């Protein structure tokens, strides 16, 4: 079997994802003709943003309940009469309050909802950044860590944990093997490159 140069083969291999992607997005293009009522898209858009007032976490559009069907009829009627989606949504809001919107509004205490995830992300990122730097410095200043004998040893032989010993090579055997192999592969790769 002839070996081609690795660099070129890498490129060949990496073409696969590209081909796969081309296939993946060769999705059918929208057919031109539509037979549904042109208002129906607007109705759907409104109905998907309002909840059915008696169901459990379903939009008016998805729900099968009688109330949802009635609401859908009202929406359809209002759209036919030329109401835009803001007006129709307001109409239901006047009757049910914020509860009717599936997507919470961005005002008052709901800001907790909208800001929360990004504050979590920010806070987590900052904390992690600080911690990483500290641990990196700890490495530079070279404190010896306090290790302990693995419980595999202590539970079996009944010895108590020793201070100061690095965690046994015993249970890291699997790890170091993999490490060595990894390094070997790395080295070989560097020669190849």
């Amino acid at each position: 079997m002839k070996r081609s140069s690795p660099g070129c083969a890498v490129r060949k291999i990496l073409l696969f994802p590209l081909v796969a992607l081309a296939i993946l997005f060769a999705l059918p293009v929208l057919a031109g003709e539509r037979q549904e009522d042109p208002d129906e898209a607007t109705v759907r858009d409104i109905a998907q943003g309002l909840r059915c007032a008696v169901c459990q976490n379903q939009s008016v559009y998805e729900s099968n309940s009688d109330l949802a069907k009635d609401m859908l009829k009202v929406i359809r009627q209002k759209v036919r009469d030329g109401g835009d989606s803001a007006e129709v949504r307001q109409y239901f809001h006047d009757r049910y309050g914020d509860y009717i919107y599936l997507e919470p509004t961005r005002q008052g205490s709901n800001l907790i909802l909208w800001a929360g995830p990004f504050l979590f992300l920010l806070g987590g990122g900052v904390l992690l950044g600080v911690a990483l730097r500290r641990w990196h410095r700890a490495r530079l200043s070279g404190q010896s860590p306090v290790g302990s004998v693995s419980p595999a040893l202590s539970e079996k032989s009944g010895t108590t944990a020793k201070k100061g010993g690095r965690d046994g090579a015993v249970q890291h055997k699997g790890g170091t093997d993999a490490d060595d192999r990894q390094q070997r592969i790395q080295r070989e790769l560097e020669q190849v490159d």
Partner: protein
Amino acid sequence: MWIEVGHFAALTAFVLALTQTGAGVLGGILARPAWVRVGRQAALMVALLLTVASLGLIMSFLQHDFSVRYVAEHASLKLPVFYLATAMWGGHEGSLLLWVWFLAVFSAVAVWRHWSTHPLSMPWLLGLLGAVMVGFLLLVLFLSSPFERLFPAPADGRDLNPMLQDPGMVFHPPFLYLGYVGFSVPYAFAMAALLNGRSGTEWILAMRRWTLFAWAMLTTGIVLGAYWAYYVLGWGGYWAWDPVENASFMPWLTATAFLHSVMVQERRDMFRTWNLFLIITTFSLSLLGTFLVRSGVLSSVHAFANDPGRGVFILIFMAVVLLFSFGVLVFRADHLRSGTPRLDTILCKESAFLFNNMFFMVAALTVLLGTLYPLAMETLAGTKVTVGAPYFNKVFVPIMLGTLALMGMGLVIPWRRATAAALGRMFRWPLLLALLAILPVWLVGVRHPYGIIGASLVVFVLATHTQDLYRGVAARRQRDGRAWPTVLWHLVIRNQRRYGGLVTHLGVLLMVAGFIGSGLFQQERDLVMRPGDVMHMGPWQLTFASMGRAARHNWQANEAVIQADKGRESLTLLPQKRIYDGSSQPMSEAAIHSTWREDLYVVLGDQVADGAWAFRVYLNPLVMWIWWGACVIALGVGLSMLQGRRLRRKQGA
């Protein structure tokens, strides 16, 4: 008759679970090995007895014993045998029994397997798992008992909720519970490590396979739930960000974080406390999930029963478990300090794992916030707010895209130290491909930023993973010069966990592709048709041929006959509107034609006028990729799980 046997077995199991808890803990504290042995025998007996109890309930269903209230409420004479047997977990009381039965079996297996290898953890393991069982058995026996009788017995039962008469729903709860309960064993070991003041690498090895198993089960359970929602509920989607779905999704997120960060502890012995925190959080969230759903505090698609007495007990039980677990964690964690973690460089696999954990925790917190916020608002401010799917899609997707980007890097970044040059070499091609991928996506007409970034990231991850595999093979071929299939085989077999992880990632990628396709390209139409009418949907031409009737066991239906043609391909779709006996609510049975590229999904609506029917037709691209992705994930987990034994043998354990 069977129900008495079952009831008696459950009562005996309750007494023995108390024995198990007491004997285990006291035996541990007072150093009496004989007591701990008593605890062990009790644990094995509890498993046996709860098996008898559950089978007793199932037998009562099979014999149509309507003198049992639970059977009368969830079955009927006409119900097919398969659903009769599985109706055992068709309602609140039976599901709880199923939960505690799984827990008993898992406890027994854990005690039996780890008896000789973890003598120090054993007392706590017996005590903690016993205590959780006692809590659940209290609920099952005294507050929501499936063994309750009904006199006089009705002639026929009220039948199982039609929505649950579907294979997807039959298997969804057991898998979900296998996942939830599977986390109880690692949780008990983690707590034992804290209470004993030792935690090292060894419990981690035993626990990783438990956690992997539980994670795989939970994943399967969640996907089955999505599958069921897609096929039965007939709204063209599979994930509604319903509080109940979120309840099962949160432990999944934290468990995923744990599976990753535990590798760091194994390899570098860092982040012990953090891992304990993660596994305790995961089990707590499993309990929270069970209770949110079962206490009726959420009224959602899945809520069955609502009973304040039950809810209060559940909340108290939950509070005790949480306070105890996190209290122990806070007060005992400093006994485990393995010193400050030390990183050779900031750029390394360890920190990639940390960032992975951060993203997963933020994701879990976000879901928690969105799920509990309406409850909090109703309790505190008395206002009703809806936090629906549009909110979650907006805030959750960016977090997940970040996780996807990390996934592309994490697998290939080396441990300990990575030089910028090596990283440059590693990511040059994948990054280039990811950028190139934007072009075809744009040309296809995707304008949504999430869609473009998502697709580009999928390509990026695929490229780094493919490159990683290729380099591994190439390096070994350089050395051994054997044919590449042989080399690949050896590479994977030598390092099952790593390549199991790689396969799992590929499964996740397939799913993400499915999410992007179906989330952004779904087309839908609503229209009224009379027999003979024709409509077009994407490449399909649909002809409403005729309207017929269909009936089976316990339902009757209107059935539309729809002829679907695409080029030379032609098939018949039969969407139904079913009326089940004893239920007035009609159920839509969507007709779905699935191909690898798209699903054609037809739902029959109401009769609008004489002979005219409303139809809703969806075209859902790439939905099948989600289900296949889940299968690939299962493969990957299976591969990873093969390795545990070998590692332990190597270490002479």
